[in-house]
């Protein structure tokens, strides 16, 4: 395999990794909707019973932080794809074409 083809292969690989990272962040939609629901309900609860404000707020923040988890999984996958995967994938590619 000549150098031009190798550059093309590396370029395609990096581009697809970037696309994959972008797709992984679709996971951000779910927590967004979920946390929005949680905050809306908390606002309703505080409106009904203003004396419970501190309890409701602390429970809401706790629930929001837990609901965030699925989004964070997506974020970790995206970060791995951008910062970690290119190095190891490049090694795999170079080994496969026998340049290393």
């Amino acid at each position: 395999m000549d150098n031009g083809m190798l550059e093309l292969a590396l370029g395609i690989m990096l581009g697809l990794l970037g696309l994959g990272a972008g797709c992984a962040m679709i996971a951000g939609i779910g927590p967004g909707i979920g946390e929005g629901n949680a905050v809306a309900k908390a606002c309703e609860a505080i409106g009904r019973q203003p004396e419970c404000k501190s309890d409701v707020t602390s429970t809401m923040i706790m629930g929001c932080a837990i609901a965030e988890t699925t989004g964070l999984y997506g974020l970790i996958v995206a970060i791995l794809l951008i910062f970690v995967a290119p190095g190891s994938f490049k090694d795999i590619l170079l080994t496969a074409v026998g340049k290393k």
Partner: protein
Amino acid sequence: MTETAAPDVKSKKFRMVDYGLIAMMILPILACIVLKVLFTPASEGVNISGALVFWSNEPELGMTTLYLSESQINSWAVMISILGLCLYLTHGLTAKAVTKRQLIAEWLVEKSEKLVKDNMGGFFAEWGPFIAAIMGLSAFSSLICLVGLFSPTGDVNVTFGWAILVFFLIMHFKFRGGLWNYFIGLFKPIPVFAPMNLIGEIATPVSMAFRHYGNILSGAVISALIGSALTGLSRSLLSWLPGVFADMPLLRVGLPAVLSIYFDVFSGVMQAFIFAMLTMLNVAGAVPWDEWNARRKKRNKTEIQNTAA
């Protein structure tokens, strides 16, 4: 309890011990900063990287490579600092509080015991120190990035270690109802659910570890991205300034600090609270009270009631 004489707060010996304890709080952090400065490779601009590796061995036959990384060093420094803080707060305790630090220490102890009692019930009333230790270690580990060091919690190995510790505790209490009962419980409500139940058992520590790690890491990554973006912006906008000002990333003054209030301080303390909260709820929820009491009855022991859970 015997009444001890109030320590002479002004005496030279008391002061010297105080200074020693304050040094114990500050010196590990300073040592970490010095280590980081010595080991950081010279590079241009902001780069996003994991923990620095200070030392690693050559893998011999049948051994994996062992690393001594920044996260280990920093977490030990945090532990020594917290120990120093605890010793400082409890230095010169008396039956009647005379020093401000004793009031702070009493407040901390009362709060942690109340939190544990409210969330775990009377059976776990003595778990206050453990939960407070987890919360304090986690919070201070996250907050250490305010002095420019790498947060140990931004390394998945550290949070995973804590999560595995919690997993062992959960398993310990689940087995109290008998191994066979636990095994049967995996096949409920119908046998088809067994793989899902098994995954659910393993998912608890994994989700706890990744939640904490992901929050801290995402804050660090976003801070680094904003820092590099502002550097580039100030290079392109402010390059007409005279002398050294042209090279200085002046736009980086201010905005990253404001954002770090959310990403570092709020997020770090929040995750520490959530990690401790999930530890409490998972451990307290793992105890099979009915089966355990049935087993105790068989051996002619008294039943245990978890009061005021």
